[in-house]
């Protein structure tokens, strides 16, 4: 764990797909504070459904959760959810940027796109976490985060409801740290 402390992670980007809602619920329920970092959630979701995911998640934590709109500022102590139908990118000066571009890995938002952009914008202050999912989005982006000096974490595949995404994450990133949801909670609390 010490190694992470040294890297001064203050932006955590979580990618998830099938089985992701339950996993994220577990994480949010376990978090008590989020003082010196921001948490960004990129979840594959249904197209053209005006879903109120942030309101759903808000029931499980007192930490404020916002659905991202374009050019919104990233602030410490807040949780952000990528909106449906846009790719979520990051500007160096610490704000979000949305793109209405083609799907990547059949997904918009795509986890790869957000991970890559976070790596470019924030380098070693990012931690990418890949959770349950039934496709391979995110694996490539994790690698970009690692290449730019960031930290990478993959959910213990045997614990994930759908193991394909964590497994492909590990296949492309054999050095990635494997954690259970509980360990992920502890890790997020620890980097405060």
């Amino acid at each position, binding site marked *: 764990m010490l190694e992470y402390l040294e890297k001064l992670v203050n932006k955590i980007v979580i990618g998830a797909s099938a089985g992701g809602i339950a996993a994220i619920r577990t994480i949010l329920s376990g978090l008590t504070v989020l003082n010196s970092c921001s948490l960004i959630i990129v979840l594959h979701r249904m*197209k*053209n459904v*005006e879903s109120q995911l942030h309101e759903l998640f808000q029931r499980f934590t007192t930490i404020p959760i916002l*659905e*991202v*709109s*374009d*050019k*919104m500022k990233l602030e410490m102590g807040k949780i952000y959810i990528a*909106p449906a*139908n*846009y790719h979520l*990118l*990051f*500007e*160096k000066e610490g704000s979000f*940027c*949305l*793109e*209405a*571009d*083609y799907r990547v890995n059949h997904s918009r938002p795509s986890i790869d*796109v957000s991970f*890559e*952009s976070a790596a*470019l*914008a924030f380098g070693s202050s990012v931690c990418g976490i890949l959770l349950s999912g039934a496709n391979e989005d995110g694996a490539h982006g994790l690698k*970009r985060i690692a290449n730019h000096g960031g930290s990478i974490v993959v959910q213990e595949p045997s614990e994930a409801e759908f193991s394909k995404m964590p497994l492909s994450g590990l296949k492309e990133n054999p050095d990635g740290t494997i954690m259970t949801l509980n360990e992920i909670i502890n890790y997020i609390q620890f980097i405060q």
Partner: protein
Amino acid sequence: MLPLKSDEIQVFLKGLKLNFSLDFTEYSEASVHRRLSRVCEQLECDDLEELTQRLESDTNLLIEFLDQFTVNVTEMFRDPFFFQKLLPFLELEVKKDYCIWYPGCASGEEILSLAILLHRVKKLNYCKFTGTDLNEKVLERATKKWVKRRHIADYQRAFSQVTGDFDLLQYFEDDHSQELRLKKFVELKADYEVHDLVSLYWEKGPFDLIVCRNVLIYFNKELQDKVFSFLIDKLKIGGVIAFGSRESVFFCKSYNQLEVLDRDARIFRKIG
């Protein structure tokens, strides 16, 4: 994704501005980075220097570059709830010579969507559309009033969310090709022309309705502010303007000239 350096990107964009009068210097940096590395890959350039050289030696390449650099993704009835919210206002307000501007219309699927909805409430013959975009290649497609067959199932679903009716195909000519063309009985009067919003100038207008969705998101905050004011200037007092559902227009300087008609759908009226 090809990693590019910030300062190289700036040099490249300045070159474009100087040599081709295309100004992307105030576009969002994260997005520009992603677009440029994709263009380099597609045009098989190792870096921006090579791309610059090729653009300088082959003038035809510029149109191709623009086509790939701009994000032209659009669809029919994107965000069905937006059309649901907009339609009641139009039903009440559209009268003779109602002028509609669609800046950044890409290949025009949104214009076709609105035209069909207006046709259904018998208001389309009062309307005149102008679709503009920076990318002349997509505009050429827009003039054809085509939609792609492979997307029709998605469009039907979205259409039924807006109208409760599933039969979108009644409005399209089907000659079993890849493209379906809008039928003639939907009498859509539309002009399409190349226009660059960054120029902050246009001789046309003012308009009764401006729909500019998912275009300002490509600009940085300063440019968003300028283009936003420009759009408001092109709107008649009492006219309606709409943006994409996740756009942050609330912080723009000219925002106080607007009254909110629907906050979530980003539909506003000009009051001053």
